[in-house]
């Protein structure tokens, strides 16, 4: 594993660049734990200071230091993405492996359900939920809901691999030697689907964070909890653009771009590493 990482860093420029960008983000998250301010307090510093020596990224109209605000927001936003990604990964793996391993009618039914769920437009349903839940809509509930909506595509992918594993020698051996289904899936099949899981996790993370950013910008999450989208929400609420406090908008937007580009580059290069066909294509002539 370590050797793979080293090789990727050395020979894959996308991976190197992606690691660099995500490195910045992680540094920011670590910094958030050493913040001199409580992330929820307002009017702790002089408002509306442009970026400079004292306040690196300036301060906003609510009297918050943008740097520390950004650090806390990044941590919360990433946290949200990770929670969604982990929960939906578990669902996707279980559904995909079981459906692929059991096969037959069960598989058909599970996949029909899977595809139906995947065909529903997420945003309107989430918005409806946000609407009816109102103040009860904490980030935890939101994460759970997003996780429920975000696994269908990946479970189908995992299922197709599981389906191809089903007929392999070792599955039969394992089944004959009296392993229970759960054991077969966990010990024999899981390792094979891990690369796909890794790749889809990146994409899922991108999707989940995008969702969070979008909903918070609209003010549909807990607006007091600092998040990247929340920062933009407050900037909009104070008409930062019109008032000329451009850094209030620019800082979170830049952070989003760095985060998403980093994740995307990592996902892409890992995918390339996994898929021999695209490796071949890369070598060109």
């Amino acid at each position: 594993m370590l050797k793979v990482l080293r090789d990727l860093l050395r020979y894959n420029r996308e991976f190197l660049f992606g690691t660099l960008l995500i490195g910045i983000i992680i540094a920011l998250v670590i910094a958030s734990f050493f913040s001199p301010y409580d992330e929820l307090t307002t009017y702790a510093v002089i408002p509306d200071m442009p970026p400079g020596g004292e306040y690196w990224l300036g301060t906003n109209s609510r009297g918050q230091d943008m740097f520390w605000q950004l650090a806390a927001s990044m941590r919360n936003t990433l946290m949200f993405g990770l929670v969604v990604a982990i929960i939906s990964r578990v669902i996707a793996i279980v559904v995909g492996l079981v459906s692929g391993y059991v096969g037959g009618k069960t598989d058909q039914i599970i996949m029909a359900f899977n595809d139906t769920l995947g065909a529903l437009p997420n945003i309107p349903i989430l918005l409806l939920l946000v609407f009816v839940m109102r103040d009860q809509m904490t980030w935890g509930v939101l994460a759970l809901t997003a996780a429920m909506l975000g696994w269908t595509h990946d479970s189908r992918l995992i299922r197709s691999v599981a389906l191809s594993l089903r007929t392999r020698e070792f599955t039969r051996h394992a089944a004959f030697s009296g392993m229970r289904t759960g054991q077969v899936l966990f010990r024999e099949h899981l390792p094979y689907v891990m690369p796909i899981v890794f790749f889809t996790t990146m994409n899922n993370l991108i999707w989940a964070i995008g969702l969070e950013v979008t909903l918070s910008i609209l003010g549909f999450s807990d607006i007091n909890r600092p998040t990247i989208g929340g920062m933009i929400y407050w900037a909009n609420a104070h008409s930062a653009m019109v008032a000329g406090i451009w850094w209030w908008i620019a800082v979170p937007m830049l952070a989003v771009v760095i985060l998403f580009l980093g994740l995307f580059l990592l996902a892409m290069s890992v995918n390339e590493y996994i898929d021999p066909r695209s490796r071949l294509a890369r070598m060109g002539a």
Partner: protein
Amino acid sequence: MTLAMTNERSVAQAADVLTIKDLKAYYINDLFGVRREVRAVDDISLTVRRNEIYGIAGESSSGKTSLIKTIAGAIRPPMRVVGGEVRFDFGGKHIDVYAEPGKMKAARWQNLSYIMQGSMSVLNPVRRIKHAFNNFAFRHMGLDRTAFRARVESHLQRLGLDPNVLEAFPHQLSGGMRQRVTIALATVCEPEFIIADEPTTALDVLVQQDVLGLIKEVQERLGSSVVFVTHDMSVHAAITDRLAIMYAGRLAEEGPTQAMFDTPQHPYTAHLIASLPRIGDTATRKSLAGKPPSLANPPTGCRFHPRCPIAIDRCSREVPDMLPSAIGGRVACFRAGEVSVK
């Protein structure tokens, strides 16, 4: 017509259409700094004459397809030509395949056509057959649309195909019909040189006979040269004039087909011939011990020596040259001619 007569004819008109010299082509994978070479074509020299069917035999993975892809200038990464040359002589028009890609491109389908291995998948799945003929052959024929269509239809009929197949999609045809279509496609421009890679392998025996007859007939009518690749020795016995045996990316032996079947000079040739089933034969055939060698890391000396029943010390140290053999061909073996088919 007997094989002997064919041979005389080709000798009489001896003129080489294809000359290969010291050809080396490797699959080179260079990933994350680890280099892996598969030497699928390793130092091969041979010539193909006008108006003959030249067979190439050898077990699976011996590099047959790789060799003829290199001949046809059809290599794609990760394969690379590492050394040697391939030259064609189409009635005075000389082409060095790897030095003159432009000339080669112009000669494709006009002078040289190719029937790919796995002909089931060589037709565009979403277009009707007629488009394949238009794309492949139209610009070489110098005919207008209607005359071209008429020519294609009569050509198909001669090959026992209903002209209606032109309006069909590939998936609507049976395997045998598709194979015939690819043969029609490869011969419609009446090229001097046809390369056929396992054109009969996927077919059942009766259709196989048909297709073999077809290729033979077309070849005789056009007087072209055919390089015919298959691992099936009985097919070689039935159709080829001269035969080359490949083993692990190299030539083991080459010679007149009939003579090679009578008195194989190389122990590997003898093994291939001995493993052919014969009528009235009940004894089980002895299969060769050991596995085919890895082309990424081939054995030293003669590549066949680990499996050779008559190997001597020298075989593992020195690489045998291709030298003239007793039956008018060439052979790469220190103990050439010392085995016989029981």
